[in-house]
């Protein structure tokens, strides 16, 4: 007989009736704990949008788990009325991997920051993406170490003057989306705290993706790095500095939707829509195109490499690929072994291949 563990039984017995879930409101996903982020912190809106998105997942509360590392953002699980673990610095992706692989019935969310995931935990972050573990990772990027009171992070722009870099940081910063694509991430997206509607949409997209979802969220640290993303979040500059990606739609931006991006071979260029170029000449976004996703991820430095041109920062889903998840792979191997290798006979295992008798 093949092994049916107590957890296999537990999952069957406790399976939520998905057709008759309670009508949750976002508020019901708030725990009884006081939220202790600084007033005005971008984390508040992200928390709110995550809570608002939860009732739309179509899952029972009991089947949702939030796992975080260390940092301001990592306090997040305490504020969610789901299962949660506030773990240790940088390791949330590894903990989530162990949980998801052994409990594929759960919806597992990782809450992390730029310090947590891009320096101490960068290895786990990359490995999670390449393995394609079916979890959702929300990377709160505020380009600073907040909890330790204001040192530059691996995401801080070069020259950042902080407590630990009084003469300006000389680190070249990480480009988190290029890093994620380089790790063969199967879902790579960006959102910002100041556009809650789009943020919620991206949270839901992350959930819908079958595989490791990496959603970078620009988050304002009001105390140590206020205004880091103002260019993109300010209503005045946003139209020219940010571009929202829609699958199958041309890349258009600008105050009056008067600008677009076209591809000259593999070289992107900003064009004015009008006499010379029309919508039909523009680059049409294709979430499944890895090469173009990479080009989009390079709209990062103020001027793209080798170009005089200034590109807007892309928001939305850069890349989404359907690929076997790690947890599915593991569970398929186990199921196959159970099916093909005969009975799980402990006595036969203990006995081994060669024995002898002592009378």
């Amino acid at each position, binding site marked *: 007989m093949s092994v049916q563990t*107590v957890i296999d039984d537990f999952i069957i017995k406790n399976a939520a009736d998905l057709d008759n879930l309670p009508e949750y409101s976002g508020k019901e996903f708030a725990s009884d704990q006081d939220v202790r982020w600084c007033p005005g912190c971008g984390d508040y809106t992200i928390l709110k949008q995550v809570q608002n998105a939860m009732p739309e997942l179509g899952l029972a509360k009991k089947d949702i788990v939030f796992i975080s590392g260390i940092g301001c953002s990592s306090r997040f*699980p305490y504020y969610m009325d789901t299962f*949660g*673990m506030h773990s240790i610095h940088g390791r949330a992706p590894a*903990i989530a991997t162990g949980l998801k692989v052994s409990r594929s019935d759960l919806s597992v969310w990782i809450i992390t920051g730029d310090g947590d995931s891009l320096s101490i935990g960068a*290895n786990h972050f990359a490995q999670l993406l390449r393995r394609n573990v079916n979890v959702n990772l929300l990377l709160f990027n505020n380009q600073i170490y907040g909890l330790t009171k204001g040192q530059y992070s691996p995401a801080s722009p070069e020259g950042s003057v902080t407590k630990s870099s009084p003469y300006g940081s000389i680190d070249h910063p990480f480009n988190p989306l290029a890093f994620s694509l380089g790790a063969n991430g199967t879902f790579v997206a960006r959102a910002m705290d100041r556009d809650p509607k789009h943020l919620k949409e991206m949270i839901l997209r992350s959930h819908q993706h079958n595989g490791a979802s990496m959603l970078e969220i620009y988050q304002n640290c009001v105390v140590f790095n206020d205004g880091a993303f103002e260019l993109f979040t300010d209503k005045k500059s946003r139209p020219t500095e940010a571009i929202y990606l829609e699958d199958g739609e041309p890349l258009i931006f600008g105050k009056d939707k008067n600008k677009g991006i076209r591809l000259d071979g593999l070289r992107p260029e900003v064009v004015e829509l009008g006499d010379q170029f029309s919508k039909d000449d523009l680059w049409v976004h294709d979430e499944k195109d890895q090469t173009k996703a990479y080009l989009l991820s390079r709209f990062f430095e103020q001027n793209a490499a080798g170009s005089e041109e200034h590109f807007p920062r892309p928001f939305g889903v850069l890349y989404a690929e359907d690929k076997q998840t790690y947890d599915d792979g593991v569970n398929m191997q186990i199921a196959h072994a159970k099916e093909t*290798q005969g009975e799980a006979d402990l*006595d036969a295992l203990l006995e081994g291949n*060669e024995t002898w008798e002592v009378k």
Partner: protein
Amino acid sequence: MSIKDQVREEVTIRFAGDSGDGMQLTGSLFTNTTALQGNDLRTLPEFPAEIRAPQGTVAGVSSFQLKFGSNEVLTPGDECDVLVAMNSAALKANLSLLKKGGIIIANTAGFDKKNLSLARYPDGVNPLDDGSLDNYTLIRIDVNRLVKEALSEMDISYKDQERSKNMFVLGLLYWMYNRPMESTISFLEKKFGAKKPEIAEANVKVLKAGYFFGETTEIFSSRVTVKQADLESGTYRNITGNEAIVLGMVAAARKSNMPMFLGTYPITPASDVLHGLAKHKKFGITTFQAEDEIAAVASAIGASFGGSIGVTSSSGPGIALKGEAIGLAVMLELPLIVINVQRAGPSTGMPTKTEQADLMQAVYGRNGESPLVVVAPQSPADCFMAAFDAVRVALEHMIPVMLLSDGYIANGSEPWKFPKSNDLPQINVEFAKARSGDDLEPYKPYNRDERLVRKWAIPGTEGIEHRVGGLEKEDGTGNVSYDPDNHQKMTDIRRDKRNLVAENIPLQEIDQGTESGEVLVVGWGGTYGTIRTVVHQLRKEGMDVSHAHLRFINPFPKNFGEMLSKYDQVIVPEINDGQLVRLIRSEFMVPAKAVNKVKGRPFGVSELKEMIKAAIEEKVASES
């Protein structure tokens, strides 16, 4: 000349050759055959850390020692009766381990000019010819030539000929010690039969050639028989320590009916635990080869949070990396099994050599007050029950348990009277129950029972949604708390909870000797066989010496302190610079004496005997 039959009680053989000569396989095959013959035995494989160490050099020598007998065999032997030297370097590296008057079987092809020079013998010196081995029985055999002749009718490459040399020596030793060849032949046929039948045939041919060489030449005037050992009746198999850990883990998973998740990262000498468990998926075992030691333990904690038996395996350097995460498991009060197959340290140290120097690391090696349980197996076969116990305690007490094995017992092997699954105790696991209703109080994950154990509250259970974390928490609610009194309380609770494990483990027993007296030798872990043998000899010599061997070190068994107080002297031999001895001194205020060695090898029996005698006399001297 007729060949006489000699009966001996025990024999120690040491196979030594170049890393590429297949000495480990030769030793293992001889071991299996010998085990099937019903002898008691212990083995000691020793090999360089380099996968392909420079050929022909002393650094590249790999050896395998095996002692077998018709009485209880508890150590692989201090010195060997027979040394097989496949080349000059093997002789040079191992001659000091051969008994005076012992037999050297030298492959003369390994003593040509090139090999002698690689082994750094002075120019023109060949130990086989210069009389330096006159005190030994030297048997010279040109194994290379004999193998070539044996295979002359086969179309086989030079390389494959070279590779079958070890089978010639094995065959010869089978003849010398009256062992049958069947088990080895069936192994060779299984290993090569399907894909390379000609290789199987060649190896079997060479094996037989070695056997018949012994029979037809008149090099030996006698053959040795070692009768079946008087072991406890039952069915036996041979097993190494790492294999026994694997089986102990699977057995514990089945007896608790729990899924098991091993998160690990390859490291010598612990990797065989991963290799072994990776095969047992059908028993509900998941293995995850993580990106590093930290991810390995972290993934195990994640799995444990979800209701699996979380296991991680490593050796000292990896355990150092896991420290922070083990502390998290202590804080979360989740079950976690940490397997440390110790090797010689510090830092990278000597990966393939044994040591017991991670005890302090196991007991104290984390930030903050971070109590966990430490269990140490005492022999290869004992790794089974120690592993089983480690899982049992972790699950029943919601606490991390460190299983401290070592390279010596991990790679060494011995006969094992394996249990029936029905004879193993059931491990009972109970998860927190679901709750429903409208006005539920927030769930209290840190409510405890009388043993201070909290409930295992796993995701997917309705109405008990809750958060845990590495921050200090209020007892009961689990809410983050910086309250001074609460931290004191939680520190005390975590300590007391660990100490209460003592209620769930056997009392310490005297392995040999009397319940009080002059000297108690206290050991732990892999030194068991040697200490037992030494104490047996000392008692035979009329000395008042007893032996107790600890399996649970943290907490100690409840009666251990009282036991110590009943002897005039306590002596603690360890393969480290004095660790258990310090724990004993500080915990029980007993002036225990340390007997230590750190050479990457286990104690030898005569060596330890002298050291213990010296330690006893030291006391007498200081009193007079």
